[in-house]
Protein backbone atom coordinates (compact mmCIF):
# COMPACT_ATOMS: atom_id res chain seq x y z
CA UNK A 1 0.00 0.00 0.00
CA UNK A 2 1.17 3.51 -0.80
CA UNK A 3 2.16 5.29 2.42
CA UNK A 4 4.45 8.00 1.08
CA UNK A 5 3.97 10.33 -1.85
CA UNK A 6 6.72 12.75 -2.88
CA UNK A 7 6.92 15.65 -5.33
CA UNK A 8 10.56 16.52 -5.90
CA UNK A 9 11.22 19.69 -7.87
CA UNK A 10 14.91 19.34 -8.62
CA UNK A 11 17.08 16.62 -10.15
CA UNK A 12 19.13 16.20 -6.98
CA UNK A 13 16.07 16.02 -4.77
CA UNK A 14 14.53 13.35 -7.00
CA UNK A 15 17.73 11.37 -7.10
CA UNK A 16 18.18 11.48 -3.31
CA UNK A 17 14.58 10.40 -2.74
CA UNK A 18 15.04 7.49 -5.12
CA UNK A 19 18.11 6.28 -3.23
CA UNK A 20 16.58 6.85 0.20
CA UNK A 21 13.13 5.34 -0.37
CA UNK A 22 13.61 2.90 -3.24
CA UNK A 23 10.23 4.22 -4.36
CA UNK A 24 8.66 3.99 -7.79
CA UNK A 25 8.80 7.01 -10.07
CA UNK A 26 5.68 7.86 -12.02
CA UNK A 27 4.29 10.58 -14.23
CA UNK A 28 1.00 9.38 -15.75
CA UNK A 29 0.72 6.29 -13.58
CA UNK A 30 -1.21 4.52 -16.33
CA UNK A 31 0.97 1.47 -15.92
CA UNK A 32 2.16 1.70 -12.31
CA UNK A 33 -1.29 2.04 -10.74
CA UNK A 34 -2.62 -0.91 -12.73
CA UNK A 35 0.30 -3.01 -11.49
CA UNK A 36 -0.07 -1.85 -7.89
CA UNK A 37 -3.78 -2.67 -7.95
CA UNK A 38 -3.14 -6.10 -9.48
CA UNK A 39 -0.58 -6.81 -6.76
CA UNK A 40 2.22 -7.14 -9.29
CA UNK A 41 4.06 -4.25 -7.63
CA UNK A 42 4.12 -3.71 -3.90
CA UNK A 43 5.59 -0.41 -2.85
CA UNK A 44 4.99 1.98 0.00
CA UNK A 45 6.51 4.94 -1.79
CA UNK A 46 5.68 6.64 -5.06
CA UNK A 47 7.56 9.62 -6.44
CA UNK A 48 5.57 11.97 -8.67
CA UNK A 49 7.95 13.40 -11.28
CA UNK A 50 5.47 15.98 -12.60
CA UNK A 51 6.70 18.70 -10.27
CA UNK A 52 10.27 18.44 -11.53
CA UNK A 53 11.45 21.55 -13.29
CA UNK A 54 12.44 19.95 -16.55
CA UNK A 55 13.04 21.09 -20.11
CA UNK A 56 10.42 21.25 -22.82
CA UNK A 57 10.06 19.22 -25.99
CA UNK A 58 12.56 20.62 -28.46
CA UNK A 59 14.33 20.17 -31.77
CA UNK A 60 18.07 20.64 -31.79
CA UNK A 61 20.69 19.56 -34.33
CA UNK A 62 18.24 17.36 -36.25
CA UNK A 63 17.27 15.60 -33.03
CA UNK A 64 13.96 15.55 -31.20
CA UNK A 65 14.29 15.75 -27.42
CA UNK A 66 11.40 14.35 -25.40
CA UNK A 67 11.75 15.06 -21.67
CA UNK A 68 10.09 13.04 -18.93
CA UNK A 69 6.51 14.13 -18.13
CA UNK A 70 5.77 14.84 -21.80
CA UNK A 71 2.54 13.01 -22.59
CA UNK A 72 1.73 11.22 -25.83
CA UNK A 73 -0.92 13.87 -26.55
CA UNK A 74 1.64 16.66 -26.17
CA UNK A 75 4.13 14.80 -28.36
CA UNK A 76 1.53 14.31 -31.11
CA UNK A 77 0.72 18.02 -31.15
CA UNK A 78 4.40 18.90 -31.34
CA UNK A 79 5.10 16.43 -34.17
CA UNK A 80 2.16 17.80 -36.13
CA UNK A 81 3.05 21.46 -35.57
CA UNK A 82 6.67 20.91 -36.60
CA UNK A 83 5.89 18.39 -39.36
CA UNK A 84 8.58 15.91 -38.43
CA UNK A 85 8.80 12.11 -38.27
CA UNK A 86 5.24 11.28 -39.38
CA UNK A 87 5.80 7.65 -38.38
CA UNK A 88 5.63 8.78 -34.73
CA UNK A 89 2.05 9.98 -35.23
CA UNK A 90 1.14 6.63 -36.78
CA UNK A 91 2.59 4.76 -33.82
CA UNK A 92 1.47 7.05 -30.99
CA UNK A 93 -2.16 7.22 -32.11
CA UNK A 94 -2.40 3.45 -31.57
CA UNK A 95 -1.17 3.63 -27.98
CA UNK A 96 -3.85 3.13 -25.33
CA UNK A 97 -6.78 5.50 -25.70
CA UNK A 98 -7.21 9.28 -25.47
CA UNK A 99 -7.31 9.02 -21.67
CA UNK A 100 -4.10 7.00 -21.60
CA UNK A 101 -2.40 9.34 -24.09
CA UNK A 102 -3.38 12.34 -21.97
CA UNK A 103 -1.46 10.89 -19.02
CA UNK A 104 0.97 8.28 -20.31
CA UNK A 105 4.46 9.25 -21.45
CA UNK A 106 7.06 8.02 -23.95
CA UNK A 107 9.69 8.07 -21.18
CA UNK A 108 7.48 5.80 -19.07
CA UNK A 109 7.19 3.39 -21.98
CA UNK A 110 10.99 3.19 -22.25
CA UNK A 111 11.28 2.71 -18.48
CA UNK A 112 8.88 -0.25 -18.63
CA UNK A 113 11.04 -1.78 -21.36
CA UNK A 114 8.34 -4.11 -22.61
CA UNK A 115 9.07 -5.82 -25.93
CA UNK A 116 5.47 -4.89 -26.78
CA UNK A 117 6.05 -1.20 -26.02
CA UNK A 118 4.97 0.74 -29.08
CA UNK A 119 7.05 3.76 -28.24
CA UNK A 120 9.99 1.50 -27.55
CA UNK A 121 9.67 0.30 -31.13
CA UNK A 122 9.58 3.91 -32.36
CA UNK A 123 12.70 4.69 -30.36
CA UNK A 124 14.60 1.72 -31.85
CA UNK A 125 13.64 2.79 -35.38
CA UNK A 126 14.77 6.37 -34.77
CA UNK A 127 18.10 5.40 -33.16
CA UNK A 128 17.11 6.91 -29.85
CA UNK A 129 19.41 7.69 -26.98
CA UNK A 130 18.26 7.64 -23.38
CA UNK A 131 19.48 10.53 -21.26
CA UNK A 132 19.97 9.84 -17.58
CA UNK A 133 20.30 12.24 -14.66
CA UNK A 134 22.06 13.22 -12.49
CA UNK A 135 24.86 11.42 -14.36
CA UNK A 136 24.01 12.99 -17.76
CA UNK A 137 24.86 9.67 -19.39
CA UNK A 138 23.57 9.19 -22.90
CA UNK A 139 22.96 5.55 -23.83
CA UNK A 140 21.62 4.08 -27.10
CA UNK A 141 18.19 2.62 -26.38
CA UNK A 142 19.15 -0.88 -27.55
CA UNK A 143 21.95 -0.92 -24.96
CA UNK A 144 19.82 0.65 -22.25
CA UNK A 145 17.10 -2.01 -22.53
CA UNK A 146 18.53 -5.35 -21.45
CA UNK A 147 15.45 -7.56 -21.63
CA UNK A 148 11.75 -7.59 -20.79
CA UNK A 149 11.38 -4.96 -18.03
CA UNK A 150 15.15 -4.76 -17.54
CA UNK A 151 16.98 -1.47 -17.93
CA UNK A 152 20.44 -0.23 -17.14
CA UNK A 153 19.95 2.29 -14.38
CA UNK A 154 22.04 2.98 -11.30
CA UNK A 155 20.31 3.42 -7.96
CA UNK A 156 20.62 7.19 -8.07
CA UNK A 157 19.73 7.58 -11.74
CA UNK A 158 16.48 8.19 -13.54
CA UNK A 159 15.48 8.72 -17.16
CA UNK A 160 15.47 12.43 -17.85
CA UNK A 161 14.54 12.26 -21.50
CA UNK A 162 15.03 10.61 -24.86
CA UNK A 163 16.51 11.92 -28.02
CA UNK A 164 15.35 10.68 -31.42
CA UNK A 165 16.67 11.27 -34.91
CA UNK A 166 14.59 13.41 -37.22
CA UNK A 167 14.42 11.79 -40.64
CA UNK A 168 13.44 13.45 -43.90
CA UNK A 169 12.07 11.78 -47.02
CA UNK A 170 11.53 8.31 -45.63
CA UNK A 171 8.64 6.10 -46.58
CA UNK A 172 7.20 4.43 -43.53
CA UNK A 173 4.88 1.70 -42.44
CA UNK A 174 3.61 0.74 -39.01
CA UNK A 175 1.11 -1.89 -38.05
CA UNK A 176 0.27 -3.65 -34.86
CA UNK A 177 -1.88 -6.70 -34.62
CA UNK A 178 -4.31 -6.89 -31.73
CA UNK A 179 -7.92 -7.55 -30.89
CA UNK A 180 -9.44 -4.13 -30.39
CA UNK A 181 -8.66 -0.67 -31.77
CA UNK A 182 -7.97 0.91 -28.42
CA UNK A 183 -6.01 -0.35 -25.44
CA UNK A 184 -4.32 -3.17 -27.31
CA UNK A 185 -1.04 -4.59 -26.32
CA UNK A 186 0.33 -5.87 -29.57
CA UNK A 187 0.42 -9.55 -30.48
CA UNK A 188 3.08 -8.50 -32.95
CA UNK A 189 4.00 -5.22 -34.60
CA UNK A 190 6.20 -3.97 -37.42
CA UNK A 191 7.77 -0.59 -38.08
CA UNK A 192 9.56 0.11 -41.35
CA UNK A 193 11.44 3.14 -42.63
CA UNK A 194 12.90 3.29 -46.13
CA UNK A 195 14.85 5.96 -47.90
CA UNK A 196 15.09 5.39 -51.64
CA UNK A 197 17.50 6.39 -54.33
CA UNK A 198 16.39 5.50 -57.87
CA UNK A 199 14.23 2.58 -56.71
CA UNK A 200 17.13 1.28 -54.68
CA UNK A 201 17.60 1.28 -50.94
CA UNK A 202 19.60 4.17 -49.53
CA UNK A 203 18.65 3.37 -45.94
CA UNK A 204 16.29 0.85 -44.43
CA UNK A 205 15.24 0.29 -40.82
CA UNK A 206 12.92 -2.49 -39.82
CA UNK A 207 11.82 -3.41 -36.32
CA UNK A 208 9.35 -5.83 -34.76
CA UNK A 209 7.58 -5.70 -31.41
CA UNK A 210 6.39 -8.59 -29.19
CA UNK A 211 8.35 -11.28 -31.03
CA UNK A 212 11.58 -11.40 -28.97
CA UNK A 213 12.74 -10.45 -25.43
CA UNK A 214 13.36 -6.92 -26.71
CA UNK A 215 12.38 -5.06 -29.88
CA UNK A 216 13.87 -7.00 -32.81
CA UNK A 217 16.05 -4.96 -35.14
CA UNK A 218 19.17 -6.09 -36.99
CA UNK A 219 21.51 -3.42 -38.26
CA UNK A 220 23.75 -5.89 -40.14
CA UNK A 221 20.90 -7.08 -42.31
CA UNK A 222 19.87 -3.48 -42.87
CA UNK A 223 23.39 -2.48 -43.94
CA UNK A 224 23.66 -5.43 -46.32
CA UNK A 225 20.61 -4.18 -48.21
CA UNK A 226 21.94 -0.74 -49.09
CA UNK A 227 21.97 -0.36 -52.89
CA UNK A 228 19.61 -3.29 -53.44
CA UNK A 229 16.65 -2.93 -55.75
CA UNK A 230 13.34 -2.68 -53.92
CA UNK A 231 11.07 -5.50 -55.02
CA UNK A 232 8.96 -8.31 -53.67
CA UNK A 233 11.84 -10.79 -53.68
CA UNK A 234 13.85 -8.55 -51.41
CA UNK A 235 10.96 -8.43 -48.95
CA UNK A 236 10.52 -12.19 -49.16
CA UNK A 237 14.16 -12.48 -48.19
CA UNK A 238 13.62 -10.05 -45.30
CA UNK A 239 10.47 -11.88 -44.19
CA UNK A 240 12.41 -15.14 -44.08
CA UNK A 241 15.36 -13.65 -42.20
CA UNK A 242 13.18 -12.12 -39.51
CA UNK A 243 10.97 -15.19 -39.31
CA UNK A 244 14.14 -17.06 -38.34
CA UNK A 245 15.50 -14.34 -36.06
CA UNK A 246 12.28 -13.91 -34.09
CA UNK A 247 11.94 -15.83 -30.84
CA UNK A 248 8.46 -15.11 -29.51
CA UNK A 249 6.76 -16.71 -26.55
CA UNK A 250 3.28 -18.10 -26.18
CA UNK A 251 1.16 -16.04 -23.78
CA UNK A 252 -2.46 -15.06 -23.21
CA UNK A 253 -2.49 -12.98 -26.37
CA UNK A 254 -1.17 -15.45 -28.94
CA UNK A 255 0.99 -18.50 -29.58
CA UNK A 256 4.62 -18.30 -30.62
CA UNK A 257 3.86 -20.03 -33.93
CA UNK A 258 1.21 -17.46 -34.78
CA UNK A 259 3.58 -14.63 -33.88
CA UNK A 260 6.32 -16.02 -36.11
CA UNK A 261 3.90 -16.26 -39.00
CA UNK A 262 2.89 -12.65 -38.33
CA UNK A 263 6.53 -11.56 -38.65
CA UNK A 264 6.63 -13.09 -42.12
CA UNK A 265 3.23 -11.85 -43.22
CA UNK A 266 3.60 -8.31 -41.84
CA UNK A 267 6.90 -7.88 -43.71
CA UNK A 268 5.25 -8.75 -47.02
CA UNK A 269 2.18 -6.73 -46.13
CA UNK A 270 4.36 -3.68 -45.52
CA UNK A 271 5.83 -4.09 -49.02
CA UNK A 272 2.45 -4.55 -50.68
CA UNK A 273 0.96 -1.53 -48.93
CA UNK A 274 3.92 0.68 -49.72
CA UNK A 275 4.79 -0.43 -53.23
CA UNK A 276 1.90 -2.23 -54.88
CA UNK A 277 -0.52 0.56 -53.98
CA UNK A 278 -3.10 -1.97 -52.91
CA UNK A 279 -4.15 -1.49 -49.34
CA UNK A 280 -4.66 -4.80 -47.55
Amino acid at each position, binding site marked *: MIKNYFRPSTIDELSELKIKTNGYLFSGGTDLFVKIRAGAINTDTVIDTKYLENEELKIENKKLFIPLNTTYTELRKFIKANQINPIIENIVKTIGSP*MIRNRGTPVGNIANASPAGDFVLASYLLNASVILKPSSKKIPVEEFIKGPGKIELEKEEFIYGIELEILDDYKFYFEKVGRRNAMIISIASIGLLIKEDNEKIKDIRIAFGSVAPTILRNKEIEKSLIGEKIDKNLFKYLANEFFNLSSPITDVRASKEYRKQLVYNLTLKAYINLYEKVVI
Partner: protein
Amino acid sequence: MKIKFTLNGTLIEKDVPVNKRAIDFLRDDLGILSIKEGCGEGECGACTILVNGKNVHSCLMLAVELDGKEVITVEGLKDNVIQEAYVEAGAIQCGFCTPGFIISTKALLNETLNPTPEEIKEALEGNLCRCTGYVKIEKAVKLAAKMYKGSDSND
Protein backbone atom coordinates in the same frame (compact mmCIF):
# COMPACT_ATOMS: atom_id res chain seq x y z
CA MET B 1 -1.93 15.43 2.48
CA LYS B 2 -3.75 18.75 2.01
CA ILE B 3 -4.93 19.48 -1.51
CA LYS B 4 -6.74 22.39 -3.11
CA PHE B 5 -8.50 22.23 -6.47
CA THR B 6 -11.69 23.30 -8.21
CA LEU B 7 -14.41 20.75 -8.74
CA ASN B 8 -17.13 21.82 -11.15
CA GLY B 9 -16.28 25.42 -10.42
CA THR B 10 -16.20 25.14 -6.64
CA LEU B 11 -12.95 25.47 -4.73
CA ILE B 12 -12.32 22.41 -2.58
CA GLU B 13 -9.73 22.10 0.18
CA LYS B 14 -9.35 18.69 1.76
CA ASP B 15 -6.94 16.46 3.53
CA VAL B 16 -6.67 13.18 1.63
CA PRO B 17 -4.77 9.97 2.29
CA VAL B 18 -1.94 9.61 -0.25
CA ASN B 19 -3.03 6.12 -1.26
CA LYS B 20 -6.57 7.16 -2.16
CA ARG B 21 -7.48 7.04 -5.83
CA ALA B 22 -9.12 10.09 -7.40
CA ILE B 23 -12.25 8.03 -8.21
CA ASP B 24 -12.73 6.99 -4.56
CA PHE B 25 -12.14 10.49 -3.28
CA LEU B 26 -14.54 12.10 -5.76
CA ARG B 27 -17.28 9.47 -5.38
CA ASP B 28 -17.12 8.49 -1.73
CA ASP B 29 -15.93 11.69 -0.06
CA LEU B 30 -17.41 14.32 -2.37
CA GLY B 31 -20.48 12.47 -3.65
CA ILE B 32 -19.79 12.84 -7.37
CA LEU B 33 -21.76 9.79 -8.43
CA SER B 34 -21.64 10.26 -12.20
CA ILE B 35 -18.15 8.76 -12.03
CA LYS B 36 -18.48 4.99 -12.36
CA GLU B 37 -16.00 2.28 -11.66
CA GLY B 38 -16.05 -0.39 -14.32
CA CYS B 39 -12.75 -2.19 -14.69
CA GLY B 40 -10.52 -0.15 -12.38
CA GLU B 41 -7.61 -0.49 -14.79
CA GLY B 42 -8.14 1.97 -17.62
CA GLU B 43 -9.82 -0.37 -20.08
CA CYS B 44 -13.46 0.75 -19.95
CA GLY B 45 -13.50 4.53 -19.54
CA ALA B 46 -16.53 4.64 -17.20
CA CYS B 47 -14.52 6.68 -14.66
CA THR B 48 -13.47 9.38 -17.15
CA ILE B 49 -13.25 12.95 -15.85
CA LEU B 50 -11.88 16.19 -17.27
CA VAL B 51 -8.72 17.46 -15.62
CA ASN B 52 -7.59 20.83 -16.97
CA GLY B 53 -9.76 20.17 -20.02
CA LYS B 54 -8.30 16.76 -20.84
CA ASN B 55 -10.16 13.48 -20.35
CA VAL B 56 -8.36 11.07 -18.04
CA HIS B 57 -9.14 7.95 -15.99
CA SER B 58 -9.96 8.83 -12.39
CA CYS B 59 -9.25 5.20 -11.45
CA LEU B 60 -5.60 5.49 -12.54
CA MET B 61 -4.93 8.68 -10.68
CA LEU B 62 -4.24 9.49 -7.07
CA ALA B 63 -6.48 12.03 -5.34
CA VAL B 64 -3.36 14.05 -4.42
CA GLU B 65 -2.71 14.53 -8.15
CA LEU B 66 -5.87 16.65 -8.37
CA ASP B 67 -4.06 19.33 -6.34
CA GLY B 68 -4.09 22.64 -8.19
CA LYS B 69 -6.22 21.30 -11.02
CA GLU B 70 -9.56 22.18 -12.53
CA VAL B 71 -11.81 19.11 -12.48
CA ILE B 72 -15.06 18.81 -14.42
CA THR B 73 -17.51 15.92 -14.24
CA VAL B 74 -20.94 15.53 -15.83
CA GLU B 75 -22.43 17.34 -12.81
CA GLY B 76 -20.41 20.42 -13.68
CA LEU B 77 -21.02 20.74 -17.42
CA LYS B 78 -22.33 24.21 -18.18
CA ASP B 79 -25.21 22.95 -20.31
CA ASN B 80 -27.07 19.74 -21.09
CA VAL B 81 -26.41 19.78 -24.84
CA ILE B 82 -24.45 16.53 -24.96
CA GLN B 83 -26.89 14.74 -22.65
CA GLU B 84 -29.83 15.88 -24.77
CA ALA B 85 -28.07 14.72 -27.93
CA TYR B 86 -27.48 11.28 -26.40
CA VAL B 87 -31.17 11.02 -25.46
CA GLU B 88 -32.27 12.27 -28.86
CA ALA B 89 -30.05 9.79 -30.70
CA GLY B 90 -31.10 6.89 -28.48
CA ALA B 91 -27.47 6.44 -27.45
CA ILE B 92 -28.28 5.20 -23.96
CA GLN B 93 -29.48 1.91 -22.60
CA CYS B 94 -28.36 0.97 -19.11
CA GLY B 95 -26.49 4.26 -18.75
CA PHE B 96 -23.51 3.00 -16.78
CA CYS B 97 -20.98 3.99 -19.44
CA THR B 98 -22.79 7.20 -20.39
CA PRO B 99 -21.06 9.73 -18.09
CA GLY B 100 -17.68 8.54 -19.38
CA PHE B 101 -18.86 8.86 -22.99
CA ILE B 102 -20.25 12.33 -22.30
CA ILE B 103 -16.95 13.47 -20.84
CA SER B 104 -14.98 12.06 -23.78
CA THR B 105 -17.46 13.75 -26.12
CA LYS B 106 -16.93 17.04 -24.28
CA ALA B 107 -13.15 16.67 -24.57
CA LEU B 108 -13.53 16.21 -28.35
CA LEU B 109 -15.98 19.07 -28.82
CA ASN B 110 -13.72 21.39 -26.84
CA GLU B 111 -11.15 20.80 -29.60
CA THR B 112 -13.46 20.93 -32.62
CA LEU B 113 -17.14 21.37 -33.46
CA ASN B 114 -16.59 19.81 -36.87
CA PRO B 115 -15.25 16.37 -35.98
CA THR B 116 -14.70 13.88 -38.80
CA PRO B 117 -16.08 10.33 -38.37
CA GLU B 118 -12.49 9.20 -37.71
CA GLU B 119 -11.99 11.86 -35.06
CA ILE B 120 -15.22 10.80 -33.35
CA LYS B 121 -14.18 7.14 -33.38
CA GLU B 122 -10.75 8.01 -32.01
CA ALA B 123 -12.17 10.29 -29.31
CA LEU B 124 -14.45 7.50 -28.07
CA GLU B 125 -12.11 4.55 -28.52
CA GLY B 126 -11.28 4.39 -24.83
CA ASN B 127 -14.92 4.11 -23.74
CA LEU B 128 -16.70 0.78 -23.80
CA CYS B 129 -20.47 0.34 -24.08
CA ARG B 130 -21.85 -3.16 -23.80
CA CYS B 131 -25.51 -2.33 -24.56
CA THR B 132 -25.96 -0.07 -27.55
CA GLY B 133 -23.16 -0.74 -29.93
CA TYR B 134 -21.54 2.47 -31.03
CA VAL B 135 -23.48 3.72 -34.05
CA LYS B 136 -26.00 5.70 -32.05
CA ILE B 137 -23.32 7.09 -29.79
CA GLU B 138 -21.41 8.36 -32.81
CA LYS B 139 -24.63 9.93 -34.09
CA ALA B 140 -25.13 11.58 -30.71
CA VAL B 141 -21.69 13.18 -30.92
CA LYS B 142 -22.43 14.55 -34.39
CA LEU B 143 -25.76 15.81 -33.15
CA ALA B 144 -24.22 17.49 -30.12
CA ALA B 145 -21.68 19.23 -32.38
CA LYS B 146 -24.53 20.50 -34.52
CA MET B 147 -26.50 21.66 -31.53
CA TYR B 148 -23.48 23.58 -30.23
CA LYS B 149 -23.09 25.22 -33.61
CA GLY B 150 -26.70 26.33 -33.39
CA SER B 151 -27.92 24.37 -36.38
CA ASP B 152 -31.18 22.48 -36.01
CA SER B 153 -30.82 20.25 -39.07
CA ASN B 154 -30.78 16.63 -38.11
CA ASP B 155 -29.39 14.37 -40.82
